[in-house]
């Protein structure tokens, strides 16, 4: 296994553990966070806080480098424009997120927990991404 494959594997593993520890991997807890008018569980705001605290440092370091520690080009997004696709796509994502309590990361992780419902969600999500690719190729 190459060093790049290994580092991606370890990164994914830690990401998955973070989802499990934080509670973001549990759709019921996600929906309790999104339910402002019910018995609100603010935990997920702290998940974002903890992740961004570490992320701020890492992306500051990354922005100063051209190549990664393992000598790959560092690919940081450069766009700064706010367009309709960004806003409408994100609004649509929130609707899907609120329907089931799943966003892409937790759904992938939950496959490893043997959740058949996560498998169904991920397959539907991949189909949605496939639809996007088909539409894009026709443009």
């Amino acid at each position, binding site marked *: 296994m*190459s060093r*790049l494959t290994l*580092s*991606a*594997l370890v*990164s*994914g593993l*830690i*990401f998955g553990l973070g989802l499990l*520890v*934080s*509670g973001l991997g*549990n*759709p019921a807890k996600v929906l309790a966070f999104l*339910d402002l*008018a019910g018995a*609100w569980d603010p*935990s997920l705001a*702290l998940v*974002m806080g*903890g992740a*961004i605290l*570490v992320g*701020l440092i*890492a*992306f500051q*370091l*990354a922005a100063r480098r051209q190549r*990664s*520690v*393992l000598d*790959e080009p560092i*690919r*940081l997004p450069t*766009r700064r424009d706010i367009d309709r696709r*960004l806003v409408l*796509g994100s*609004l*649509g*994502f929130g*609707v*899907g*997120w*609120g*329907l*089931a309590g799943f*966003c*892409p*990361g937790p759904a992938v*992780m939950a*496959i*490893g*927990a043997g959740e058949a*419902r*996560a498998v169904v*969600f991920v397959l539907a999500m991949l189909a*949605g*991404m496939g*639809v*996007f690719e088909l539409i894009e190729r026709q443009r």
Partner: protein
Amino acid sequence: MTIDFAAFTPASAFGGGMLIGLAAALLILLNGRIAGISGILGGLLRPGPGETGWRIAFLVGMVMAPIGWALVATLPAIDIDASYPVLIAAGLIVGISTRYGGGCTSGHGVCGLSRLSPRSLVATLAFMASGFATVFLIRHVLGG
């Protein structure tokens, strides 16, 4: 608004969040890539040279997390209450719209906000707002 203090888990939420941040840090500093799950998945459908292996490895790592966890301890709760039709509809919507919006909770919410990206701030505010609105509609208007 009523805060459910019995369900509030600040320490594990913050600690788990730091793990997610650490994973994103490792991927950008070692591989030079953004840990955005919808982008990692979507990129598999548009394969480029050298762009498949690390994506598969990252996803395998994510799936291995609960498998490894279960070997040493009881898994935390993963309660999925949505029915299969709702899961299919939600999955389709999340799949197509995260590609249009260029990211999800991880790519925009964690990595983008960490980069202080204005696009990601707008995206995060948008999906949080529609997420809140959707759950409000389902639970308090339609009475689901």
